[in-house]
């Protein structure tokens, strides 16, 4: 009896690992995106979701589909790239950024910031808003990078759904923002467009943390909720990349559930804010 293999059934479990390996290998070989060291349970969930929507009968057909059907591969790539984000996501983090990081940045004549894994740009715009309010934006460059070009294109446009603005305004206020949040964008029916003045010093660039190397020496790195998807070894490798990209005394900001404790670099940073996962590279 042939089991129905386009959805999860316990029958495919014994071969699951080799199916998944063949799928991520096909993506890597043909398109250069490397998911081979991503957490398996996550990758599996995303692949099985795509499988269920694909019309394929059997998961073993997926690698050749990836190799021969670019449109399908592109969809899968979008599935594997998590673009969920918010403006002022975790307001407590942005409050701490204002209180603990801005005073350090203020001491530099020119400030370079790397926002790694910026997705559709909401957090890069949040950063620009804070810097503008603190009078630092004119001497700052924000390098906002992601491997997902579609997300980057959206980030560059700076157009977001109007429905989200209520939540973002609340986040902004909770983060210690004192201005009128609606001054930062122009409403246009169901969308808003972020102000040109916020975009001017953001450089949007395609960069893959897994396969690309250091591209700038910076004062501040934000990489939030990216490392959770990586296996430990890849986490370590990426942390090394961040360490090498920071100046001495530079700041590293991670996601609320990410840390340095299990990396080789833990001793090389001071915790500026333990709860908000803000670290300072030792001199």
């Amino acid at each position, binding site marked *: 009896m042939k089991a129905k293999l386009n959805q999860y059934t*316990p029958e495919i479990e014994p071969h699951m690992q080799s199916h998944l390996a063949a799928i991520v290998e096909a993506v890597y070989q043909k398109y250069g995106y490397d998911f081979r060291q991503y957490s398996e349970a*996550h990758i599996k969930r995303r692949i099985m979701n795509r499988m269920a929507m694909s019309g394929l009968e059997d998961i073993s057909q997926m690698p050749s589909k990836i190799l021969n059907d670019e449109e399908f591969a592109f969809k899968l790539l979008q599935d594997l790239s998590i673009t969920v984000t918010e403006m002022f996501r975790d307001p407590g983090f942005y409050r701490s950024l204002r209180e603990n990081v801005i005073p350090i940045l203020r001491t530099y004549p020119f400030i370079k910031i790397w926002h790694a894994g910026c997705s559709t740009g909401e957090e890069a715009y949040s950063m620009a808003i804070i810097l503008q309010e603190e009078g630092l934006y004119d001497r700052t460059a924000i390098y906002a990078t992601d491997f997902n070009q579609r997300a980057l294109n959206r980030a560059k446009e700076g157009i977001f759904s109007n429905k989200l603005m209520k939540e973002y305004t609340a986040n902004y206020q909770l983060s210690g923002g004192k201005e009128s949040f609606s001054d930062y964008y122009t409403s246009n029916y169901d969308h808003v467009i972020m102000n040109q003045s916020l975009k001017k010093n953001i450089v949007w660039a395609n960069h893959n943390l897994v396969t690309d190397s250091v591209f700038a020496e910076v004062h501040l790195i934000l990489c939030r909720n990216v490392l*959770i998807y990586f296996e430990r070894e890849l986490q370590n490798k990426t942390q090394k990349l961040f360490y090498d990209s920071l100046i001495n005394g530079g700041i590293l900001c991670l996601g609320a559930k990410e840390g340095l404790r299990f990396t080789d670099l833990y001793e090389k940073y001071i915790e500026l804010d333990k709860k908000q996962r803000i670290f300072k590279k030792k001199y």
Partner: protein
Amino acid sequence: MQYDAVVIGLSAGGMNVMKIIFSLLPKDFSTPVIIVQHISPRSDSQWIGLLNDKSNLAIKEADEKEKIKNGTVYIAPANYHLLIEKNKTFSLTIDERVNFARPSIDVLFESAAEAYKNKLIGVVLTGSNHDGAKGIKRIKECGGLAIVQDPKTAESAYMPTSAMAAVKPDYILSLEEIIDLLIKIDKQKE
């Protein structure tokens, strides 16, 4: 039959239910317990500390890559999905909400079912959403044990009822009876 982990899902009325669970589970309960409760994305982890103070067991928020240990209760952090890897460690993700929820019970249950196979107990408790129904079905398909709170005894019957519509549970019991059963199963390990 021996079981290596218990996963529990709950939403509406969950906080009081959790207090009851932790007051009833004894200190020597060894099977790890992993819980998804629907909570506000903005809530911090303080409530877990408060629960921990009142419990016989060690209760903590699940950390990414953390190894699952006996005698410990893990709770999914707010605003993250909690998944279990084959090597019995946790993964966290922030992909889209599932059933309007992050953390989602289905996401935990499905990954747990695939990691623990027939060594898993799944429990669906009170809730006003159908989250958990697909997950408990997956647990059953993978050979695990499915327990659902008797809807008549749940603060909100919707979630248990949805679970029962998705799969025939092995047990339909009140909360106190569920805890008794878990303790009995846990004792068989020794």
